């Protein structure tokens, strides 16, 4: 293991305690370590999320979906895979693989609307809808291309 383990070889680690019993926040002691992964974390930068062994303490396994009142909907037909939405999403919620935008991670998206604002296509390939709006209806109601205003 790499440097990660140098800093986390404390045997009071959360995993060890956590396996025995659930540790309350007020039982956390100095030097305690919360592990992000169940196993070796050395090569994490070369692993995609779906190949990682996330620990129960990684916020990846949690959700903030209940924060949303509006949600972005993605329309693949218009997308040019520019990745603007990927780079600016503050919640790691745009799923891109092999230079392609695949969709939205609704477990982590908070519905901020940034991705819609930065999408350059006409019409946009991402639009905000009410959280409870049906996805197919949303796609069916997609606006037409906006014409350039005549000078």
């Amino acid at each position, binding site marked *: *293991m*790499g*440097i*990660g*383990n*140098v*800093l*986390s070889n404390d045997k009071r680690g959360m995993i060890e305690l*956590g396996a025995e019993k659930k*540790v309350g*926040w007020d039982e*956390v002691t100095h030097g305690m370590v*919360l592990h*992000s*992964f169940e196993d070796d*974390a*050395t*090569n*994490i*930068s*070369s*692993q*995609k999320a779906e190949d990682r062994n996330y620990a*129960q*303490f*990684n*916020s*990846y396994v*949690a*959700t*903030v979906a209940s*924060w949303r009142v509006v949600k972005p909907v993605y329309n693949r037909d218009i997308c040019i*895979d*520019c*990745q603007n939405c*990927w*780079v*600016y*999403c*503050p*919640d*790691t*919620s745009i799923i*891109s*693989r*092999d*230079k392609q935008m695949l969709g939205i*991670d609704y*477990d*982590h*998206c*908070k*519905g*901020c*609307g*940034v991705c*819609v*604002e*930065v999408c350059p296509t006409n019409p946009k390939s991402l639009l*905000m809808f009410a959280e409870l709006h049906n996805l197919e209806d949303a796609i069916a109601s997609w606006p037409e291309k906006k014409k350039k205003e005549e000078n």
Partner: protein
Amino acid sequence: MAITSTKNLKEFSTANDRFEGAHLLCPGCAHSMIVRELMNCTDDNLVIATNTGCLEVSTAVYPYTSWDTSWIHIGFENAATAAAGAEAMYKARKRKGTLKNPDAPVKFVAFGGDGSTYDIGFQWLSGAVERGHDFTYICLDNENYANTGGQRSSSTPIGANTTTAPAGRVSYGKKENKKDMMAIMAANGAHYVAQVAPNKWKNMAQAFQKALATEGPCYINAISACTTEWKFDSKDTIHVSDLATDSLVFPLYEIIDGHELNITYRPKNVIPVRDYLAAQGRFRHLFKPENEHVIEEWQKRVDANWERLQRREEARV
């Protein structure tokens, strides 16, 4: 191992995120855009120290962590101290041969808010830079103590309405000018200093990569538009950041070894400071007739500062 490329956005998007979702920062918070990009623009192992502020409290809410790297949670004034201590220990253990994996590349990074950087952690940051630790300090500069409800810091600009410098009948808000941390850190001996903004993602990635590659202490001032305290809609974080860089209220530039100043972004169309201010609720009161002079003076300061930066760039001193 995937080699991160920031050549263009498509290449960059193949980076495997190491800053995880379901942290509790506000929707549209620029802090997370900056942190995500730092962690995406390198494949190296990272040891990151973060002191108290929005970033720390929102990414380590027990029992969760949003960090896929070694991450140290530390008191308000001590991001620089913690990173410096970890770096010193790493070097010592490397020398003694007690590291399990001595060849694994590792970088030390500290994140602090402007409250901790410009004010409360200032002497600790200055000390760590003076001692020459090999680390990169990144200030998430949202120009206020956001985590405790928007108090003024020495980074808050003139005219902003904050809870401890409120605008009202007798005051237009904060009266004192923003501290120039770029100049201070360059003078303090930081080997590389840069001002970056998340809307200019490539410029920011290049500055991060330069800082990580530079041996010795580096300082990055990252403008972090704060939807809650600057008072704009969460969807507009990138728009407001564009106004910040294109009005030259936040010019993007770097200073190498304390003297070589390079402007790293020149807006094609410079927009009036007024447009930047108008997009944010914290400056709404400045548009009253009796406060208009604050906007005019601000425009003059921005023009003079841009002139100064260009001269410094030419002069190479």
